[in-house]
């Protein structure tokens, strides 16, 4: 196994997630779980309001990886995450991937998404082929 620490840098992606974006995402992803929408179910939840889709938050991370790896992300990428806190709109989310190492042509990252207050929304790992 060959290793090095020069995994390509991944530029963070920052985006506002507000209720109109969540509503659009529900349509685009066909996920109409009422906890994400302005519904009685969301109001009655433990958060008392809608929560952004976890996959919408994760989409920012996939976008960041795509920006660095292009098609290699779609044909050889790996993601493993856990959600740590709900994203309550309106919230500005930043997705980051911190390089860890390259081994056998695969770059590894620690990934996270945070809100504008520094609350960690998700954490995990990502891998992508560098050539």
């Amino acid at each position: 196994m060959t290793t090095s620490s020069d995994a390509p840098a991944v530029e963070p992606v920052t985006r506002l997630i507000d209720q109109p974006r969540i509503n659009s995402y529900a349509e685009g992803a066909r996920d109409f779980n009422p906890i994400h929408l302005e519904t009685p179910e969301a109001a009655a939840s433990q958060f008392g309001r809608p929560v952004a889709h976890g996959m919408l938050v994760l989409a920012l991370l996939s976008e960041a990886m795509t920006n660095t790896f292009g098609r290699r992300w779609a044909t050889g990428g790996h993601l493993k995450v856990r959600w740590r806190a709900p994203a309550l709109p309106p919230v500005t989310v930043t997705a980051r991937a911190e390089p860890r190492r390259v081994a056998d042509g695969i770059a590894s990252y620690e990934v996270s998404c945070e809100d504008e207050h520094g609350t960690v929304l998700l954490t995990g790992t990502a891998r992508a082929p560098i050539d």
Partner: protein
Amino acid sequence: MPEVASQMKGDFATLERGYELAPFEFRVSAAEVQAYLDATGEVNELWDHSVPPLALGALALGGLMARFETPPGLVHTGQEFDFTGDVAIDETVEVRIVVASGSERRGVLMVVFETEVQTADAQIGRGRTSVMLVPEGLEMELS
């Protein structure tokens, strides 16, 4: 897009390890890709001709959720994806989902689904989805 199953929807509480959902197929049009990108805010010409891998994951997940009643307290806690191939716009993909594990602790139900997505030619992705069903009245931290 995944069809919503017309038959009676499943119940998370009765799922057992090894249970396999009926496979389903979908295709994603250029307009649907654009709707997804507009929603997420991503702009990338890579997706002029192929489907973003996370869009496929989201639609497969949507197909899964469409086959169950969505009870209050259902939380998506974890997700794993391996992307192994491109999917062209309008190409048909088949989704197979099996229950990898199901457990209950202190009234909280945890279920893991394993998903395979393939075209006519090849497997193009795998996923592992963890969900938690928290009983009403019980607050649960994600971390």
